[in-house]
């Protein structure tokens, strides 16, 4: 018999409060193959791990089972402990009696029985393990950053500063993301563009950074250390190698009435354009859909005026393939499409109901109104301004259940700016709660209140136009009375949602999103920057709503993670991958088509059969490519394929152990 040691963790009282750990250990001692069994307060602690070492020595154990928390957290810890005790780290099985037992059950008897079953299954599994060895794969020392906003730029700069080349892919014609659109940043009220544009320039100028703007990632193959990325460089129709960025073309372009998304629709641009004066790269592209030359083959003015002949109407999309070792996702956010959901606010039919981002442009000196707060409808300065918070946030009927985190602060900032810029202004903020967790945030909010901004607790139930006024009806829930405001301008603090297309890109790169479409981190507490896909990291609002400092911090954090991957020439791979039994494999090749990593091919072997040597083809696994999903194994009829660590025999043994 093999000699299994079973270690049952109390996790303080986390497990022991519900599961009778002592009884579990006692029962485990009776299972076939178990030579030693004990319960312990904290198996993951140093004394707990020492206990494994000591027990292995004293009882000559050759396999270890730990019953504790989720293996998704501590499996590596106990594998190491197993290894430290002199046993191959794969002669180890872990079962989860915390998340899957003590935390979800209260009936002590039944929970204990369940824990005993789970331990029995783990023992049955570990009896069929064999020692496994890691192998190593090379690492491509280059990172890909997807998204050129503040998170992406920060990540790219930090990785580049670490000495590794970075490819930054941005879908828009310029990097910078949303931050350059903002006027001031809270709570310090320093100029957003003044701190953002230098960052854009540094990114552009960094020798280790290659930027692809107006580009999208189309395909990602491979795996950590060895991703092959295909980038689609969309046609720009302007040769940026020649273009000097003089801007003459923009001034001459006849099509000037195209809503500028940089101005959040508040201002216009031409068909050949730079999003804003400090755009990086500071060179225009042609918006093909609105260009008369490209749509109707008329005009052609820009080519005529261009002093360097940089205009290229026959420009084509280009596919660029690069190898990278790590990927940082920084795809940012969009605003909740409130017009589709909020009928009571007029579905967007009142021009003077705007979003916070639009307000940023109104209040921005480089914006369409040169920093004067003027109503979109008639260009008049509004006197009574209503701010409504939580539009789309904290509203699981119309919008999202979550809090968007930044709105309390930017609304306070906007209210402050309105009071500051407009004399005799009357500013009312409708709110549910005011959340000001952050350095200097509460102080800023208090200042705003002191400025005279009127905070009303309650939701606005209706907005309608009456003459040139917007009638805002709501309830002051503190006073318990109806409130009506005759406003000139209404600003909605709309929720942050994942940027458009973020789900598709997650699919392309190969990781999952959460219920709201934000990128799923590997662990909400301890692995907030990692995805479940090794080598892919998260930065900024793509993972969840964030303000600028948090975003920048995550950018740096993700960069540190990616740099850690790139710091080695090669990395060890998990040995839990598929294997082929050549003698059984018939070479039908069904597995070849099933493997998502193209890790299987048919290779020729020679074999003795019936007294002679024959050559035939069998499946062969590339250990660098195989990720151990096991889809091929379940598709293999003869059982020639098996998945190390999750073999047919091990799973059958677990199934049997559940019932016997």
């Amino acid at each position, binding site marked *: 018999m093999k000699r299994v040691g079973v270690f049952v963790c109390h996790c303080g009282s986390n497990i022991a409060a519900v599961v009778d750990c002592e009884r579990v250990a006692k029962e485990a001692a009776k299972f076939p193959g178990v030579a030693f069994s004990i319960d312990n307060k904290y198996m993951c602690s140093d004394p707990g791990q020492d206990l494994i070492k000591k027990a292995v020595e004293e009882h000559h154990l050759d396999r270890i089972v730990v019953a504790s928390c989720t293996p998704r957290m501590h499996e590596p810890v106990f594998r190491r402990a197993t290894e430290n005790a002199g046993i191959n780290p794969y002669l180890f099985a872990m079962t989860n009696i915390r998340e899957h037992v003590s935390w979800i059950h209260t009936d002590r008897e039944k929970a204990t029985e369940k824990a005993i079953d789970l331990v029995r299954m783990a023992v049955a599994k570990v009896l069929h393990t064999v020692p496994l060895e890691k192998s190593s794969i090379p690492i491509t020392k280059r990172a890909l950053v997807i998204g050129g906003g503040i998170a992406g730029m920060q990540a790219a700069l930090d990785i580049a500063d670490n000495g590794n080349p970075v490819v930054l892919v941005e879908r828009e014609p310029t990097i910078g993301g949303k931050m350059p659109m903002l006027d001031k940043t809270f709570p310090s009220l320093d100029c957003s563009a003044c701190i953002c544009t230098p960052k854009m320039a540094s990114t552009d100028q960094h020798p280790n950074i290659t930027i692809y703007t107006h580009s999208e990632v189309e395909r990602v193959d491979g795996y950590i250390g060895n991703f092959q990325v295909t980038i689609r460089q969309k046609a720009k129709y302007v040769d940026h190698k020649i273009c000097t960025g003089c801007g003459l073309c923009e001034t001459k372009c006849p099509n000037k009435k195209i809503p500028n998304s940089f101005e959040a629709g508040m201002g216009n641009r031409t068909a050949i354009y730079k999003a804003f004066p400090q755009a990086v790269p500071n060179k225009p592209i042609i918006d093909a859909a609105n260009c008369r030359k490209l749509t109707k083959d008329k005009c052609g003015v820009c080519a005529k005026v261009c002093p360097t002949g940089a205009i290229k109407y026959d420009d084509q999309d280009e596919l660029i393939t690069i190898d990278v070792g790590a990927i940082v996702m920084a795809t940012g956010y969009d605003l909740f499409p409130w017009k589709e959901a909020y009928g009571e606010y007029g579905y967007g039919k009142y021009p003077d109901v705007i979003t916070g981002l639009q307000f940023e442009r109104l209040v921005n000196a480089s914006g369409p109104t040169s920093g004067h707060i003027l109503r979109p409808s008639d260009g008049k300065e509004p006197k009574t301004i209503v701010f409504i918070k939580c539009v789309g946030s904290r509203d699981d009927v119309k919008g999202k259940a979550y809090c968007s985190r930044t709105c309390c602060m930017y609304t306070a900032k906007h209210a402050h700016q309105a009071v500051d810029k407009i004399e005799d202004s009357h500013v009312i903020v409708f709110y549910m709660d005011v959340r000001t967790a952050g350095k200097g945030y509460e102080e800023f909010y208090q200042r705003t209140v002191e400025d005279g901004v009127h905070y009303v607790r309650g939701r606005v139930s209706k907005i309608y136009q009456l003459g040139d006024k917007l009638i805002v009806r709501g309830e002051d829930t503190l006073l318990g009375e109806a409130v009506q405001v005759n406003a000139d301008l209404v600003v909605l603090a709309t929720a942050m949602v994942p940027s458009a297309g973020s789900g598709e890109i997650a699919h392309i790169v190969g990781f999952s999103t959460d219920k709201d479409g934000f990128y799923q981190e590997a662990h909400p507490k301890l692995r907030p920057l990692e995805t479940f896909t090794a080598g892919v990291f998260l930065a900024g609002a793509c993972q969840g709503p964030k303000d600028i400092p948090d975003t920048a911090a995550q950018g740096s954090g993700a960069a540190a993670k990616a740099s850690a991957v790139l710091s080695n020439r090669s990395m060890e791979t998990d040995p839990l991958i598929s294997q082929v039994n050549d003698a*059984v494999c*018939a070479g039908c*090749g069904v597995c070849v*088509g099933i493997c998502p990593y193209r890790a299987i091919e048919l290779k020729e072997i020679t074999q003795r059969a*019936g007294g002679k040597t*024959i050559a035939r083809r069998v499946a062969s696994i590339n250990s660098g490519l195989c990720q151990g999903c096991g889809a091929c194994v379940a598709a293999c*009829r003869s*059982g020639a394929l098996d998945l190390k660590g999750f073999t*047919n*025999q091990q799973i059958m043994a677990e199934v049997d152990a559940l019932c016997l």
Partner: protein
Amino acid sequence: MSDPSGEMRELAKKLLENGEVDRIIGWEKGNLWYQSPPLFITRAEETDRLVFDDFAINSLVTYLLDERDSGKKTGIFVKGCDSRGLVRILQDKQIARESVYVIGLPCSGKKDPRQALSSGASESSQVPPAAKCEECLYPNPVIYDVIIGEAVEAKAKGDRFAAVKEIEAKTADEKYAYWTSQYSKCLRCLACRNVCPACNCRECAFDISKPRILAKENNLSHNMVYHLTRAFHAAGRCVECGECERVCPMGIPIMQLNKKIIKEINDLFGPYEAGVKLDETPPPLGTYQTSDPEEFM
């Protein structure tokens, strides 16, 4: 249908004589009038034994697997159903196309020796058509190097899945009782597996002892697992030749499960006919569509 035996013999003789093939697999007349068992010949003078009469019911294509490593070239006679089995074997890469010379024989239906015996008939005309030929969709070979005889019209048919629907209409307990009565009879002689052109693995999962997926003990539970596993391994790959059911000595309606699977695959993943096109995409369970029916939300 005129007797193609003469042409068959002539062709076989030529193929062996000029060394184009190393052996020929066909049918010969057995000891009893209702038997036309498989025949293997390597010498031109033996070709006179070849026949193709009402009882040439056996599919010969699985015999190709016995010689898959020999490097020999085989001349083989195939009916429509047999030819689909051959396509299956080729698609599973068990033999190379170049290693077979395929002689197609359009077939308007064969007769089953067991039925000949149980019907008490004393000559072929008294024997009813074989059950497996009743719903034949492909009377003409789908793959061949040469064809002997005229193409045959597929029979006008009733509902291909009538028997399946009859079972589907039963309650769960009735279904289970029905299959219990059938699977209880199974001797686990493995004839259905051995004759199946889709069961072309070198080593069958049932024969592997580590882990043993199926105990040797003969009981209802193991018999069911045997039949379900076998059918599932053939899912999307079964060419409906009906040989499994024909060879079963216990009369287990094996095709009723196979047909159910064909019916469901057609319903779930779109119409699919196994073993018809040599160069088609992987069988239905070896691929997927993102738009496949979603029932598991």
